[in-house]
């Protein structure tokens, strides 16, 4: 998000899900859409049936490849080289939008020079993608009228994740493919309300609505609204908090509905960090791996037991409604926070949920026009500043919030940990269709567990043969940080030398292995590339 916000002045999907079916070209890069966003994928399949050409760029032969006009199997972590190679072709063949570049962007010349060395031949050497396919991709995207790029964590979870996003933004800017219906740059968000949590300011440097905590005028606005002095220094990100806990600088942590022991890189490090705290509160619906480490555990309500709103990946606020009562003494998260605040001397009382949304609207104009009544069956997409505003399906129609959007020259940097003799395989992690995130919900559902019961490492037949491994064999997978045991799943999806492990399974948690090295700009950890060794379990 930081990447897009830097370039455009706003970090979110520029288009909406219903627009996808009218794309005539789609570049899906670093997104296993059919498994991680199944319903977005249905729209992509609809676009395919209406004649759109889909380019899939993914090291794995994901299901969406079946619908693609072109599949680029680049090596994990080489996205910048691939995209720069495509842009080299676009520049050379003048498949660019000169008017858009001169009217609405800045920094084009420096960017153009930065692309010089990324000939398709050079890109082929780095990415392993044949030159002719790089050229073909440029032709499909460059000649389309309504192309859009879709990406998820396959782009961002790298030490150069922000650079990857800059490269995608450059691609859209040079071709003028922004600010129109069905045309834009679309990061698909992975969780029901991850867009909303970010919008609401649950980030260390911004108040609700992407307003910076270190800008005096903004801080004063919030201080006068809330009636207290507020801290002016940006705080720590989640991974930095783990480090600070480890160092003894962070003494207490309050976790509401998260499970970092399973979701964060380098599980052993995270666990030690949390154990090092003087005081840990976890508020959740289950006794998660993280809650087990807590000093106090508070029972919370799940989605079906509360009123409120979620904001989906396309900036759409929709109504969440109470269907059942929470079990036992479990309470709504909002009620718990209000009581704690009041007990700590800050009177926090709202008579009904919508009162909170009204307060948010007074502080962040983009949602000022949204009321529960207006949300109906299909919600409203921000910006929606007034009560008669219909919401905004696609962004940047008249221009960018920051004025001119900027090109950012991007150099290719290899991933931090590459395979070597000791750890010869590249491990990439992700989700699968039947489980979800840390599994604290889906692994309580018998039907889902029946079809996806155990952790596995996906490996192709050639690599399996060289290791003398058969489908279903128990393997030990080790990295410099730890090792786990799990079954082999022989599949044609991974490339030679690449294995995949879903991170949902606590008993063989992929994040025991992953590298906590982080992107220097947005602090996202490199969960998509690390080096591992694979042995048959018990082989010693």
């Amino acid at each position, binding site marked *: 998000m930081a990447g897009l916000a830097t370039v455009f002045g706003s970090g979110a999907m520029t288009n909406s899900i219903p627009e996808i079916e009218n794309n005539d070209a789609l570049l899906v890069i670093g997104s296993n859409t059919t498994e991680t966003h199944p319903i977005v994928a249905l729209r992509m399949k609809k676009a395919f049936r209406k004649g759109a050409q889909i380019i899939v760029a993914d090291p794995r032969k994901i299901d969406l490849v079946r619908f693609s006009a072109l599949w680029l199997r680049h090596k994990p972590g080489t996205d910048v080289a691939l995209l720069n190679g495509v842009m080299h072709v676009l520049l050379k063949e003048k498949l660019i939008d000169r008017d858009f570049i001169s009217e609405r962007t800045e920094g084009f010349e420096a960017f153009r020079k930065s692309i010089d060395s990324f000939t398709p031949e050079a890109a082929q050497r780095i990415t392993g993608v044949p030159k002719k396919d790089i050229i073909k991709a440029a032709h499909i995207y460059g000649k389309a009228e309504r192309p859009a790029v879709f990406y998820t964590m396959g782009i961002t979870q790298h030490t150069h994740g922000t650079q990857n996003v800059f490269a995608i933004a450059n691609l859209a800017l040079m071709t003028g493919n922004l600010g129109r219906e069905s045309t834009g740059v679309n990061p698909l968000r992975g969780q029901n309300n991850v867009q*909303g949590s970010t919008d609401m*300011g*649950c*980030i260390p440097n911004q108040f609700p609505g992407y307003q910076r905590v270190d800008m005096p005028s903004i801080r004063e606005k919030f201080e006068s609204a809330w009636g207290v002095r507020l801290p002016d220094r940006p705080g720590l990100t989640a991974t930095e908090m783990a480090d600070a806990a480890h160092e003894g600088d962070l*003494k207490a942590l309050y*976790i509401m509905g998260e499970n970092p022991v399973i979701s964060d890189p380098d599980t052993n490090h995270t666990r030690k960090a949390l154990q090092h705290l003087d005081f840990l509160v976890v508020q959740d619906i289950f006794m998660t791996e993280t809650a087990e480490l807590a000093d106090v555990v508070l029972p919370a309500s799940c989605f079906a037991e509360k009123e409120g709103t979620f904001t989906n990946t396309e900036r759409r606020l929709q109504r969440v409604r*109470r269907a059942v009562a929470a079990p036992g003494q479990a309470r709504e998260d909002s009620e718990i926070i209000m009581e704690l605040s009041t007990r700590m001397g800050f009177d926090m009382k709202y008579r009904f949920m919508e009162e909170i949304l009204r307060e948010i609207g007074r502080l962040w104009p983009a949602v000022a026009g949204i009321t529960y009544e207006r949300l109906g069956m299909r919600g409203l997409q921000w910006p929606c500043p007034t009560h008669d505003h219909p919401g905004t399906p696609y962004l940047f129609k008249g221009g960018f919030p920051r004025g001119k959007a900027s090109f950012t020259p991007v150099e290719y940097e290899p991933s931090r940990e590459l395979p070597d003799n000791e750890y010869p395989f590249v491990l990439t992690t992700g989700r699968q269709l039947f489980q979800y995130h840390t599994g604290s919900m889906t692994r309580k559902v018998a039907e889902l567990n029946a079809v996806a019961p155990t952790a596995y490492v996906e490996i192709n037949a050639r690599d399996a043969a060289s290791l003398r491994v058969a489908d279903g064999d128990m393997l030990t997978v080790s990295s410099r940080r730890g090792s786990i045991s799990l079954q082999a799943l022989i599949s044609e999806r991974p490339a030679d030398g690449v294995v995949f492990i879903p991170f949902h399974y606590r008993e063989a948690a992929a994040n025991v292995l992953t590298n906590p090295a982080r992107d220097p700009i947005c602090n996202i950890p490199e969960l998509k590339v690390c080096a591992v060794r694979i042995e048959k379990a018990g082989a010693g």
Partner: protein
Amino acid sequence: MIHLTINGLPVSVPEGTTILDAARSADIPIPTLCHHPKLTPYGGCRLCIVEVKGINRPVTSCTTPVAADMEVATTTPAIEGMRKTILELILSDHPNDCMVCEKAGDCALQELAYFYGVRENRFDGERRCYAGKDRNPFIDRDMEKCILCGKCVRVCEEVQGVGAIDIAYRGFNAKICPPFEKDLSCEFCGQCVSVCPTGALTGKAWTQRGRQKDIKEVDTICPYCGCGCGITLHVRRNEIVRVSSREETINEGWLCPKGRFGYTFVNSPERLHVPLIKEKGVFREAGWDEAMSLIVSKLGKIKKKYGPDAIGGLASARCTNEENYLFQKFMRAVIGTNNIDHCARL
């Protein structure tokens, strides 16, 4: 625009519209079993037959485009007689067990049998008989109730893009099955279940948990990925017994296996139901007052001794906007730190 009359009423629709869609746009009902507005017209069930002046046989309205000055009659004694016979033929090979069928009350076939007053079976004879059930955990298949409308086949191919099933064999032996009756490539999205007009396809988890009576339907949003699908929770006696989705949602009524079948965690006996305080490494149950007091005193002490930046908070992408807003407000305004984050990067 094409101008025509349906039952004497003037109707104007764009060229290429079918007679069925033209009639429905004018709120004129025509019964169907195999039609779905989002799927390719099929013309299989023949219930949508209408009379068109100048054509001396009934035509299927779902596959016939309108023409200028067409005069359509959707209901005549002859047409209604044929529709009733079609229903009788379908029902002659359909189990008469509505009293225990999951679909009762929400079944297109049952509803039509009711309106056409089909009681006796004039075509008693051989019936299809399918032995054996498969062991998939999601979808209950009761193939004796299948009317071969083909909606499941079309939704699997046209919407899901999987094509796991099709109609095999011919005539009386025709049935819906995967290739060679074994190579199932199903993703268990349950789109087929959502379009099945009868009780042939239902959710295994719904079985005998309640049908229409005493069910409260609550529209809300799926708790899993960022697609934000609209779902409808079917609730009976404080328990979610089923999940469905309405066509007017942004997901057009389609769901994935987690969204459609992944709801039973809500009622899991493992849910936390009381505050817990750890003492000497072991959790014990506590009251809210005690737990809150402990938190207030501990956080207060740490803040006093080490300053507010020694405290951090992680909010949740599972929680609502309102809750996340309150949580960051709590961290910033009450604790006094910007150490607030969530799992956006994970």
